[in-house]
């Protein structure tokens, strides 16, 4: 809005340049003959001056002045009397001139301008992004260190995931490639390199990435990351039935708490749909599409509030119907994600108490309790696919 107020002021200022002479200038008949006479007088004065300082003699001066006089007569004869101005037409032209300024300006500006877009001066932006500034600085320092000591495996290993998180996938791949070169035995290195390559390729599991994932599986059969991406690769190749098999295999091997589980289920369903297989039998009333969309458009704080209220709803429902085992699993996971381990532990204990007859469920919950007690908190297990890559892979 402030922009349009300022723009309007500018427009008024511009229109004044057109309007002022229309009101301020008085119509006075200019006689072109007068100007010719003025020129004649000035030129005559020049000649007389030359005569006075002795550059020419009287005879020459007289001849020159006579020549000037002839020119004046010719000029006066040539200039015709000025016609009477047509006032009506003049007014139309003046009006059109004044109106055209804002009309042309606004039309053209709306065509190419961005009235809502604020300035983004670098100094102001640096204040806002202190944290990213700091990370960039640290990265720069690490880069300088590695430029001097390019054989520091540990350095590359630390830097690679940071690059990933900054969206600098190409550099990340380079860094993992260095780790692989210097220490081929590092666990998950091939899978990590391949994951970066997938990100570079815009989510496509390339042939090279596939090869690396398969190599990873040769030494580390449990690598969820490798299996995840290889399943995705099948889907991308259009072999949806094989993809579903691989997804099922992966899903059955993991728990609900695996960070890749959601993505894997989505992919599994997508592949199943494309292959014409019935959807997975798991029935899970999760957040509706609108809720997810809403959450995405909220600020971090609002989102946390929204999630908290959804968690509270779920907890309330489970109080009424404690036999909903899937519900309990989701609640426990939600508490872990929110960082509220005490609530997670309490919920897990309640779930065990309410479903003591379900041995498999009790065992699963107990393992979660064991993990919670062991760690105190619950960071995502190492070697799992990161969420960016998961979402990037949707671009198939």
């Amino acid at each position, binding site marked *: 809005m402030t922009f349009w107020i300022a723009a309007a002021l500018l427009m008024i200022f511009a229109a004044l340049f057109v309007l002022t002479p229309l009101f301020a200038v008085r119509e006075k008949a200019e006689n072109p003959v007068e100007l010719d006479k003025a020129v004649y007088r000035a030129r005559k004065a020049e000649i007389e001056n030359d005569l006075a300082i002795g*550059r020419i003699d009287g005879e020459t001066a007289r001849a020159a002045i006579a020549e000037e006089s002839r020119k004046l007569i010719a000029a006066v004869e040539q200039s015709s009397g000025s016609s009477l*101005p047509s006032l009506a037409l*003049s007014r139309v032209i003046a009006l059109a001139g004044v109106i055209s300024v804002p009309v042309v300006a606004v039309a053209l500006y709306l065509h190419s301008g961005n009235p809502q877009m604020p300035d983004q001066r670098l100094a102001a932006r640096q204040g806002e992004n202190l944290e990213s500034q700091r990370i960039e600085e640290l990265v720069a320092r690490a880069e300088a260190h590695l430029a001097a000591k390019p054989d520091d495996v540990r350095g590359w290993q630390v830097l690679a995931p940071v690059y990933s998180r900054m969206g600098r996938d190409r550099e990340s791949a380079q860094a993992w490639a260095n780790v692989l070169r210097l220490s081929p035995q590092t666990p998950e290195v091939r899978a990590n390199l391949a994951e970066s390559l997938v990100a570079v390729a815009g989510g496509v599991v390339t042939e090279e990435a596939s090869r690396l994932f398969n190599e990873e599986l040769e030494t580390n059969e449990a690598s969820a990351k490798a299996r995840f991406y290889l399943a995705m690769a099948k889907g991308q190749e259009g072999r949806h039935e094989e993809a579903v098999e691989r997804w099922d295999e992966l899903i059955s091997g993991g728990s609900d708490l695996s960070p890749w589980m959601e993505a894997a289920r989505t992919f599994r369903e997508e592949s199943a749909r494309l292959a014409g297989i019935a959807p997975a039998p798991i029935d899970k009333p999760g957040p509706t599409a609108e809720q997810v969309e809403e959450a995405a458009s909220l600020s971090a704080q609002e989102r946390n509030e929204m999630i908290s209220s959804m968690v509270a709803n779920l907890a309330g429902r489970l109080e009424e119907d404690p036999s909903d085992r899937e519900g309990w699993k989701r609640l426990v996971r939600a508490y872990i994600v929110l960082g509220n381990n005490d609530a997670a532990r309490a919920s897990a204990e309640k779930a065990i108490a309410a479903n003591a007859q379900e041995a498999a469920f009790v065992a699963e919950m107990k393992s979660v309790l064991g993990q919670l007690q062991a760690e105190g908190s619950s960071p995502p297990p190492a070697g799992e696919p990161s969420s960016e890559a998961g979402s990037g892979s949707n671009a198939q």
Partner: protein
Amino acid sequence: MINELGHFALVLAFALSLVQSVVPLAGARLGNQKLMAVGSSVSTGMFVFTLLAFASLTSAYVTSDFSLENVWANSHSAKPMLYKVTGVWGNHEGSMLLWVLILAFFGALVAWFGSNIPAQLKANVLAVQGWIAAAFFLFILLTSNPFARLSPAPFEGNDLNPVLQDIGLAIHPPMLYLGYVGFSVTFSFAVAAMISGRIDAAWARWVRPWALTAWLFLTAGIAMGSYWAYYELGWGGWWFWDPVENASFIPWLVGTALLHSALVMEKREALKIWTILLAIITFSMSLLGTFLVRSGVLTSVHAFANDPERGVFILMILMLFIGGSLTLFAVRAPLLKAGGLFQPISREGALVFNNVFLTTAAATVLVGTLYPLVVEALSGAKISVGAPFFNITFGPLMIPLLMLVPIGPLLSWKRADLYPALQRLFWVAGLALLAVIVTLALTSGEPVLASLGIGLAVWVMIGSLAEIWTRAGIGKASAASTFSRLTGLPRSMWGTALGHFGLGVILLGVVTVSVFEQESVAEVAPGETIGIAGYEIAFQGMTPVTGPNYTETVANLSVTNPSGGVFALKPAKRVYQARGMPTTEAAIRTIGFSQLYISLGDVSADGKLVIRAWWKPLVTLIWIGAIFMVAGGMISLTDRRLRVGIARRARRTVAGKQADALS
């Protein structure tokens, strides 16, 4: 918001240019004073709003606002402040904005200082300025908008081309543009005169200062551009016959002819058709230069054909203005009343000779510049027309012209005798001959042409002063009366003399540096020396240095001159980080009017360095001469009197003869 307001101001300036194109013209047609007065007021407004837009873009550069695509593409937060500012016009969009800013500035100048111009003429002139401005504003807004935004804004910019990060660039393009665009005023005067059908000495009196002003800036701009290329590009050449240079040189040649022609018209009302046509051609050549430099057609005709939006737009502007004004000329020129008559041997005749040679020279350069483009467009072959072509075509055209330079001003108006004028130049010719003989003797007669060239330079230099010499009666009258006559001479005469003298100085520099230049290239290890023209250059080693946005390796050279004195020179090789682009920083030492020029080649694996050293005798005269020319122009510009050319009368008296000798 400042960015968007800048954009809006630019759009408003365009809207005002439309008003300026139509309203004053209609006013002049209808005889309505108010509508005519809108022209002056709106041209001020157009300048104000273009200035606002320019200031807003500059502020975005200074504060590194990378949300503007133009800033992101051409700036960098670590760039020194000076280059952040000069970077505004170091790119296509920004330089076009500067172009229209200067155009609007000249329009406003006409409005402010044109109170003595007849209202109708002034209204027509401003309307024509309005057409040019509207065309270029539209060009900027539709194809080269500097206010295009980027979202999200990147955190760092691409930096300015390192070659352009130099103080030379800070001044030289604005100077050139002041010249190019200044000629738009004479163009507008010519078109306006053809619209109203009235052209006389008074018209020329208003045109002359504008032609002179534009010429001044163009001269200064070309000279600075030449010096910039000389020290920044590291090849040691001062003129490359490069299409970009030619693009500024062609308008200069035609503009020089225009300047002389306008003078004849003011003094004698002769050469009307010449003056009008030259005014049209000069600005057309400026537009053509803008097209060549800005459309990208020079880099590759095919790249231009693949992305033709900008080029085609400028081409349309070119056709509209050149075609339109020439059509108008064809229709209206026959109606112009013939001006003063003159005989072939007269001051007017000499100036026609001057015009013919200058325009022919301009045509030659134009052909050499456009020929490669035509060939590439037709056959796809890339050829380049270089110095040899220009040396054998342009050079010979200049020789008769230069020989005439001292004679012309000594001829009288309307009719003249060649002999008395030549008689007064006998001693100058003698000095020139002496210079030839001395050069031949000193150089053991090797390049005969060079000594003739030096003789010609002496002829032009001393001959230019001959008019002042004889008018002041030096050697004939007493010292006191000589002094009073000297101070009484019109400043325009001093201007002419200085301008022509500068031409001779340039010629002297050009001839000596082309013939007597010495070059020495050697690969040296630290501790070794190379010699050139009696100077011993010792290479002492390399030092790495870190600048604000570049790193460089400086070679430490210790130079011993022929008389044993020692000084240090530090040429360097730079790498600009953002673009990873290497440049060579030459080291130059001026000794008298000559220069020792050293630039660095590659460093070999074993630490040896290639050093190129040139000895350039009297090279600075090339630019000093240009300074003389500019000074002459400025002095002439301060002389606000009308120029009246008093004709020599046919009838002879004894007194008349004496007067003739002095007039």
